[in-house]
């Protein structure tokens, strides 16, 4: 760790509070750290930990009512916390640049890319407009934007999310700043695009020597490129150290919890249950007086009633924990082995769900009268079987049609073509009333816990609705009893019935959503990205709940996700979707051990592992380009435009989905060639 040189940035006891009418919200409450020239500092923490507010404080981009109420931010001899408006303006974009989370909203929709890049340079008077223009084109080229001299004149809406983030990076580096702050720069992107952007960021840091602060909730992302990591919890830094050590031997229980809560793509777990910590982060209006993690900490001792300082625990490492400061270690507790579910029959009976040749085409609204009708081929010929008692995972990047497929099999959408047979009944075009009895057996869990519960209904009404509709509860008393049972089943207190959804956290709402799906006693549940909107520890809690419920109630899951590690962890079989078609389907273990389709292979290699040592040994298969539009999919094999091993034949012939290994079917002319 460099110690000799003066740090580029010194943050000392920074306090940024939201001065609301109901009292200060202490979002950042005493944060200190250094950033040295050229280094890459990762900042991790869950939502509400204060990591983003910290970054905005450095740039002084706080919105009302947030205010820096204490501490200092020393940068090249200036205290950014106390600079006047003109002073901080000269620093922004010139010496410290920032890239934000959502590239879709970060660019001004009505201005050309060129103008937005050029003004970033001319604002600081370092370039003339003409010089800035040619530099903008060079930068875009450096960021991997194809035919930059033409695309520089585009408007943002003509760019995909990944391309926009490249533009944002070009903007960030345009004035050769000494520090770049990237606030969750890849969170809104697909995993293959994320890998491209992280590669780019790593290269820029190496070539230009720009120091980077990378903020992320994803330990894998951090492990991938950072030389030092800060872990934030409840407005404080709780641990600091090099990723190699911090991620393999955490010295703060919160880091430990983060590491164990997330399933890993590089390991087959023995138990589907994950290690979770109880409860939620404390209220930032009134932090607890002692250690802020104490209430959730499995290692807490008496001394934790006092507030610990961030003190060295090893060479180059510091932690805010009494236990590890006194030499204690954080070991993984032994857990009782769960009762293993009855082994699945080797030759299963008829599938509970059978889908063949399924298609869903959405006609797009015409923009002009004489235009020919354009059709979005969201799902374009899918065959899939789901057997009773198993969990089938459906993975793919955004726009691959996985959510549409979920809505087709639950018949929220009507298919354009193909066939859906559920429990022996053809429901492809069944009417609302014909399908209603089947809904008792087939339910769905949704992605967004904030949108999936009707905000105007109490929890009791939400859960009783299905019971009454399907005549499950004969009278009000029976309904009440059943609602209480359901709440108990998903681990919520009984008094929740009279409350409204807004009174619950995201994780709790997802529990309510699960309870609603289970109200009618289904045996088949479609879960559409049920955990992707949640923080990692809450994700683990929900996964554990779903696994428990499956064992207790004998449920069959169709589990949709974009996170491969999660899918690997919870699923028996996995189907990989690309542009509305299945590329590969097979048992989870063999699919990850020996992916036969090049797309599966690249997806797996793009998912980061939260261990730098493992990361270094993994072979990364770079995937070129962006997914094509589902309006006009490529001829032949749909993946060929991004495939590293595509040949001329792939342009002509569409590969059928054929069995290439036991239980593993692949739609590729050259299965297993890419390793």
């Amino acid at each position, binding site marked *: 760790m460099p110690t000799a040189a003066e740090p580029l940035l010194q943050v000392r006891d920074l306090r940024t509070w939201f001065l609301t009418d109901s009292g200060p919200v202490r979002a950042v409450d005493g944060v200190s750290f250094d950033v040295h020239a050229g280094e890459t500092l990762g900042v991790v923490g869950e939502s509400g930990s204060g990591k983003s507010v910290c970054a905005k404080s450095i*740039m002084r*981009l706080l919105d009302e009512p947030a205010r820096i109420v204490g501490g200092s931010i020393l940068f090249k001899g200036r205290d950014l916390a106390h600079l006047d*408006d003109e002073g901080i*303006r*000269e*620093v*922004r*974009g*010139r010496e410290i*640049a*920032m890239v*934000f989370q*959502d590239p879709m*909203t*970060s*660019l*001004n*929709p*009505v*201005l050309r890319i060129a103008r937005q890049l050029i*003004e*970033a340079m001319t*604002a*600081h008077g370092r370039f003339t407009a003409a010089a800035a223009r040619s530099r903008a084109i060079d930068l875009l080229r450096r960021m991997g934007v194809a035919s930059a001299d033409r695309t520089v004149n585009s*408007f943002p*809406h*003509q760019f995909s999310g990944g391309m926009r983030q490249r533009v*944002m990076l070009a*903007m960030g580096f345009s004035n050769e700043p000494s520090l770049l702050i990237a606030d969750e720069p890849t969170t809104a992107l697909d995993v293959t695009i994320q890998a491209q952007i992280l590669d780019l960021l790593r290269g820029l840091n190496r070539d230009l020597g720009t120091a980077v602060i990378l903020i992320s909730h994803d330990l894998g992302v951090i492990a991938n490129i950072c030389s030092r990591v800060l872990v934030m919890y409840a407005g404080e830094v709780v641990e600091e150290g090099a990723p190699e050590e911090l991620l393999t031997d955490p010295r703060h229980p919160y880091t430990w919890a983060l590491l164990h809560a997330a399933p890993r793509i590089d390991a087959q777990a023995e138990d589907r249950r994950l290690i979770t910590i109880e409860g939620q982060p404390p209220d930032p209006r009134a932090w607890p007086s002692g250690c802020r993690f104490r209430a959730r900490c499995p290692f807490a001792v008496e001394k934790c009633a006092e507030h610990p300082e961030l003190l060295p625990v090893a060479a180059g490492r510091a932690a805010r924990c009494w236990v590890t400061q006194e030499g204690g270690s954080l070991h993984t507790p032994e857990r009782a082995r769960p009762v293993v579910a009855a082994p699945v029959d080797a030759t299963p009976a008829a599938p509970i769900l059978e889908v063949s040749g399924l298609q869903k085409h959405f006609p797009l609204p015409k*923009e*002009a*009268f*004489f*235009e020919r009708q354009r059709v979005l081929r969201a799902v374009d010929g899918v065959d899939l079987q789901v057997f009773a008692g198993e969990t089938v995972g459906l993975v793919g990047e955004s726009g691959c049609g996985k959510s549409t497929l979920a809505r087709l099999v639950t018949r929220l959408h009507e298919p354009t073509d193909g066939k859906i047979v559920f429990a022996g009944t053809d429901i492809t075009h069944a009417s609302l009333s014909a399908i209603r009895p089947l809904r008792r057996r087939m339910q769905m869990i949704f992605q967004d816990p904030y949108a999936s519960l009707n905000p105007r209904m109490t929890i009791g009404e939400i859960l009783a609705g299905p019971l009454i509709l399907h005549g499950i509860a004969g009278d009000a008393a029976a309904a009440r009893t059943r609602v209480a049972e359901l709440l108990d089943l998903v681990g919520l207190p009984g008094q929740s019935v009279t409350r409204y959804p807004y009174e619950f956290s995201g994780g709790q709402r997802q529990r309510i959503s699960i309870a609603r799906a289970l109200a009618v006693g289904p045996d088949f549940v479609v879960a559409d990205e049920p955990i992707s909107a949640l923080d990692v520890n809450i994700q683990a809690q929900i996964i554990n709940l779903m696994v428990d419920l499956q064992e207790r109630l004998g449920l069959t899951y169709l589990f949709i996700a974009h996170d491969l590690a999660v899918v690997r962890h919870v699923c028996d079989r996995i189907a990989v979707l690309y542009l509305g078609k299945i590329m590969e389907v097979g048992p989870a273990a063999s699919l990850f051990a020996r992916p036969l389709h090049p797309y599966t292979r690249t997806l797996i290699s793009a998912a980061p592992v939260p261990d730098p040592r493992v990361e270094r040994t993994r072979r990364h298969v770079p995937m070129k380009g962006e997914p094509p539009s589902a309006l006009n999919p490529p001829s032949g094999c749909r993946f060929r435009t991004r495939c590293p091993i595509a040949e001329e034949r792939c342009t002509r012939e569409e590969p059928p989905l054929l069995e290439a290994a036991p239980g593993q079917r692949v739609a590729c002319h050259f299965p297993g060639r890419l390793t």
Partner: protein
Amino acid sequence: MIRYVVSRLVVSVAMVLLATLVIFLIANTVPGDPVLTALGDMAASDPAQVAEFRARWGLDLPLWHQYWLFLERLAHGDLGVSISSRRPVLQDIIDYAPATLELATVAFILSVLVGLPLGVLAAVRRDTVIDHVARAVSLIGVSAPTFWLAFIALAVFYGQLNWAPGPGRLDAVSFPPDRITGLLLIDTALQGDWETFHDAAAHLVLPSIVLAAATLGLITRTTRAAMLEALSQDYVRVAKAKGLRGRLIVVGHALPNAMLPVVTLGGLAYANLLAGAVMTETVFSWPGLGRYTFRSAVTVDFPAIMAVTAIVAAIFVLVNFLVDMSYALLDPRVVKK
């Protein structure tokens, strides 16, 4: 782009045609009887006179035929003959329209010139004095009845203070200029008659301010809301992070986005000014289209009502078309290349 323009144009023409049909149907199915109104009670009780009257105005033909005739004449620029003034409606409209056009245009320019900057300032300096002033102005503008404001303005500035000239477009002693466009400001300027120009301008002050009040209120309010919305967007934070100066962020980044709803409102407001000047015209004895429409309505003068409503509908459609076009220019997302 061309495809977009043509497509919008086709829709617009279809809308105008449909609008004339609606007017025609309304005019012909409602119980008001033009015969009674035009001939008076005495003559209307004489069947021969009534029949002669009906035949003369084509009122005895089947409805679709009457509509077809209406369209045919419309295509030739013939809007029919007013039952009450017994002159071609087109001639009437040419006489009355410029007064309204002049008044509405001045009022519109006034409300944009004041409302837009006021709205922007109010949003940028939220919760300061200027914001409160802007909110008060827009509130009074949209809440005060135009006809009452007109009365108060006339009573105070003409009746009491005598700062402004009285009703009408010109003083009785002024000689109106030779008619070129019918717009007094332009005609007098073209003819170099600056004395009459000043008189016409002075007569425009009160009515245009009164007429502008509601529009000004709406534009201020909409601009403020749109600016607040735009200023809260991520791209504004990005612009700040680039180190751009505050004024460039407001004018260069937020305003172009905030203009989109304002343009929509502005177009509609201008069309409404043209059509809705009737109350201001009434109080200020302004010989405009609004008064003419009103008189036609009261006398159930079908050809006049139909012609005026068709023209007004056409103006609305035209303004909408122009709004769509400027939208396409302002927002690149509207037209995909």
